[in-house]
């Protein structure tokens, strides 16, 4: 796993929430999906991923359960809670606003 690019902690939370919103999955799968959906640009390692997952669980936005994975072993699956859904919408909106603002400045020609 290569080192993750300079992802702000907050945006990692957003990505996790979005991925988990689509379907419940375990940590490894979340990392893979993020990589896949970003066309290999964003590569999240376990040192960033799991602390973020546990923090989100502490905040009550995701919940965890032990299930049998696709490889027939026990894995911890995370899914979105109701307050997590609300948080996701808020964070996504914030991100839109932020990125639009930054793009606005960066793309200015003069």
């Amino acid at each position, binding site marked *: 796993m290569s080192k993750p690019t300079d992802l702000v902690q907050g945006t990692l939370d957003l990505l996790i929430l979005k991925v988990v919103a689509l379907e419940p999955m375990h940590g490894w799968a979340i990392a893979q999906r993020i990589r896949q959906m970003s066309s290999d640009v964003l590569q999240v390692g376990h040192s960033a991923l*799991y602390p973020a997952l546990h923090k989100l669980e502490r905040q009550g936005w995701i919940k965890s359960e032990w299930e049998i994975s696709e490889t027939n072993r026990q894995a911890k699956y995370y899914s979105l809670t109701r307050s997590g859904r609300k948080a996701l919408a808020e964070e996504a909106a914030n991100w839109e606003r932020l990125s639009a603002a930054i793009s606005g400045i960066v793309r200015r020609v003069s």
Partner: protein
Amino acid sequence: MLRWLARLRFVSRTLIRPRRLEDELNRELQYHLEREIEEGLRAGLTPEKARYAAMRAMGAVEKSKEECRDEHHVKFVQRLEAILRDVRFSFRMLGRAPVFSAAMVLTLALGIGANTAVFSAIDAVLLRPLPFPGADHLVRVGQKQKRTADTVITPVRLEDWNSLNSSFQAMTGYYTEDISETSGDIPERVGLARVAMRFFDVWGMAPALGRAFTPVDYREGADRVVVISNRYWHSRFAGDPNVLGKTVRIGAAPFSIIGVQSSMFRFPVRDVDFWVPDPLTPGRNSLRYVGIGRLKPNVTIDQARIDMQLVQSRLAEQYPDTDGEIGVELSPLKDSIVRGSGRSLWLLYGAVSILLVIACVNIAALLLARATQRQREASVRMSLGASRGAVGAQVLTETAILAAAGAILGVLVAAATSFAFRTLAPGMPRSDEIGFDYRILLYTLAVLAAVTIGCGAVPAIRSTRARLAGALAGTGRALVGGRHTAQWVLVGVQVALSVTLLAGAGLLVRSFHELSNVNPGFPLNRILSFRVSASWAELGNVPRVRQQVDGIIESLRTVTGVEAAAVSVVAPGVPVSFQQEFRVVERSPNSDGRILAGSNVVSPSYFETMQMPLVAGEFCSRQAALAGTMSEVMVNRSFADRYFSGSSVVGLHLADAFTSNRVAGIVADARERGIDRCPEPTVYFCGYPAQPFRVFLVRTANDPESLAQTVRLKIKQLEPLRSVYDMAPLEEWVGDAFAEYRLRAVVLASFALTALSLACVGLYGTLTYVVSLRKREVGLRLALGALRRNIVGQYVLEGMRVAVLACVAGLVISVATGQVVTSMLYGISPYDPTTLLVVVFIVLFVSAIASLLPATRVSRLDPMKVLRED
């Protein structure tokens, strides 16, 4: 809100099932790693490379785990667990030596309890503001004037001040007297306060029931109204809610009750139960009221002083004759009420604090001994990786538990002592406000913390200073022990202080004994004293009052069982003296020095009643006394000896500022101003005092108490409208001097005995510890044939050596501080050798026993068993 609940649930998992958390974390990351290895294999890496990559990742896994643990607040929970573990361990350790632990807890309970109790008194009396709204704005208003030191104010001037000032919300005044409530069969004495307008405004507390006074009540011819106290409402009317409108009889007149004070109203004169409006007395010269004012919210007392000065100077211009020499004096009300108690309370606080320090020193010494004993355990822990902080924390935990147990018991002790304060010192102002509330509790917690740190710091540090290798290797196996200077010094200090305190107590006890052997000069135990109510208004017809008083005395003499009766202005036994300057008419003014003597106004039968024999001349006559001019006086022997040694004073005329009187005779001395005071030169004016404050004395054949009711009824027969009060055998009044000596002796003796027992516990504990360290040495000696009594002797000597040195030190301190106690002693010198010797003997004896016990115990050891054990 829900988020917090979810959070709480999340963290509680860490508390309840920490191992499961750890387990899950491992499994989760393990899974991740496995998937990564598989991915690597699938991507074409060889198994070795895959494993290598995995192992590289492993390092970082610990860090991830750590961060995840942070999310679960694992560190915090672990710390909590460590504290709980320490607590459980401490309980076990303390339980192993139950007697010791109990002794330490009791010691702390006494120390903390006494300290808290005195602090609660200080808090209630000195620190807390008076129990009125905005009490720090209440000010005593006084009038400075030439002729007298009294600061009572004139009503008319009070009104002027109230209307002209700009710094007070309101000002008022009151004066108190005793009156007779005559609704019942026997007149009852009640305290009454006559109050000026705005009285309730100034105090800020309206009556709980009914209403306050309005200006209508002060008008000429208004209905007679009274506000009664909460206490009177309960005792006389049983708290009847329909009490308004009922009447009480003050003297002969009925007064209608229009209000009941709240139970929180604590009038500075505690025994007042009635408040009535006092209509304005005209005239700018009458001295009548105690003045009270309430400052405006943002005005300071200094600003008020300046303001009042201006007001008074304006009045002085307006009325130069009466107001020219008048000044205004303001002082915070609380100061004028508690004045005097401060010093003795702080002194007492110092004493209990010293006692607490002694208790802490004691406990620190014992804990120190134990810490050194468990050095091995501490060394093992530290060599296994425990930090010094952890080991030290465990010792502190033990101390904290001891202190906490002591504090809980101490709170009980404090509550009991608070109660004792109220009964032992009813004369102290605001003593009924002493109680126990959260502030005192906070203070107890603070003391608890201080004690924990004070007692536990040194042992905690000592236990962590263990040199690992040495301790592990074999301190336990050493045959000959060390010197333990620190512990012995601590014990020595305690014994020395005990000696000092005991010496002081002994001196006080002997003073008390001396005092009770003194001949007072009058038959202390056969005189009944009482007062009969009168009002200042009667002074309008003084001859009539004189006749009445004479009538009372004469008819009292007819009562069976009464041998003699008299009246006096100053009650015997009261340490108050009215000093006056006299001059001999027959001599030239500057021939001798000043003649100063105490003065009293007594009826001629006084000397017969007090059984003071005639020394020269004759007794003054009843006729002269009835005439009212007080033309005859008697003097006592001290007066004659001091000012007229050699020459005769009988027949000479003594003059004071008002009259000139003939000396009829000399009587023997009596200790009227207190058993502990030498009789002072006194001049007795023979007459019948008309003013209300006089005391009647009746000498009885038998026990004075038995005639009390008869006397009361006789007085009621003669003067149905007057009440009899303050009736008690003279012994009780004079006993006040006794009581003070006794109280001091008892208090100091209890301190001393506590200090001594603490010192003994310390001695016993330290010797036990020393002996336990040298068990192997003793066992060896016994096995080699040493006599048991030699062993006992040696250890007793070790203990006694310290005790003797400490006694010497204690004696030195006692002698050095002897001057301090001289004023409290009677008839005995602070360096009295008998007392000191007895004290030293007691202390040495007790120390010997305290040393004997551990020494005997160790000599009874079975040498084989001791040598075999580790």
